[in-house]
């Protein structure tokens, strides 16, 4: 199983100038959450040029379809045409699990999320992260038990951030 290295995934996305927003558990972590997560989730822009850049990044990190029973994942047609047809991809890469969601639950996708984006300095890479409000909104909309269980902690985090102005 590849070691979880989110900063390497961000480095490669940055190197290929992919437009995206970090969502999900890692976004919550960067805001200050104490919840555990083991994969990187992003929402990329869906225009053809960005999908082509994303394709190159995915090839560089050896992205394969994640599926149970196949630790190394399954190969797939990693091109812009394929990415244009899917809404969600669960991948395994040389830097750990990596999920791509073009329309995260409760959101309108990249253009919606980028309005609230927070740019986080992970020196040397600046990473665009969904606002905590949007992370909470999406988890509530997803409605899975594991997402709903996290809401009280994320709301506590939001309260503490707001206290600090």
């Amino acid at each position, binding site marked *: *199983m590849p*070691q*979880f*290295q*989110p*900063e390497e995934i961000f480095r490669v996305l940055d190197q290929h100038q992919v437009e995206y927003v970090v969502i999900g558990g*890692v976004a919550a*972590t*960067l805001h*200050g*959450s*104490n919840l*555990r*997560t*083991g994969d990187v989730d992003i929402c990329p822009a869906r225009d053809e040029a960005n999908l082509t850049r994303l394709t190159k990044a995915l090839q560089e990190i050896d992205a394969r379809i994640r599926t149970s029973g196949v630790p190394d994942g399954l190969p797939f047609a990693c091109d812009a045409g394929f990415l244009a047809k899917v809404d969600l991809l669960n991948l395994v890469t040389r830097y750990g699990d990596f999920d791509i969601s073009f329309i995260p639950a409760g959101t309108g996708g990249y253009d919606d999320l980028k309005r609230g984006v927070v740019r*986080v*300095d*992970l*020196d040397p890479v600046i990473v665009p992260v969904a606002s905590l409000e949007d992370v909470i909104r999406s988890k509530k909309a997803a409605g899975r038990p594991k997402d709903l269980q996290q809401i*009280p*902690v994320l709301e*506590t*985090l939001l309260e*503490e*951030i707001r206290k*600090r102005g």
Partner: protein
Amino acid sequence: MSRPQPTYDASPQAPLSEDRYEEDDADRVQIVERLSWTPKQRLAYLVDMVAFEERARRARRLG
């Protein structure tokens, strides 16, 4: 600024409390601590935690 030293609860699950307020307080304490870290430190802590859990999982499998 030095990187925070991770501390882990190595038990299989966090202890269950009958008092939800105690859990809320524990989360709040951890959150307040993390808010004093940089985002890079927060991510590094998560990466260390995931690596620690993976090592523990492998050790259990070998044992």
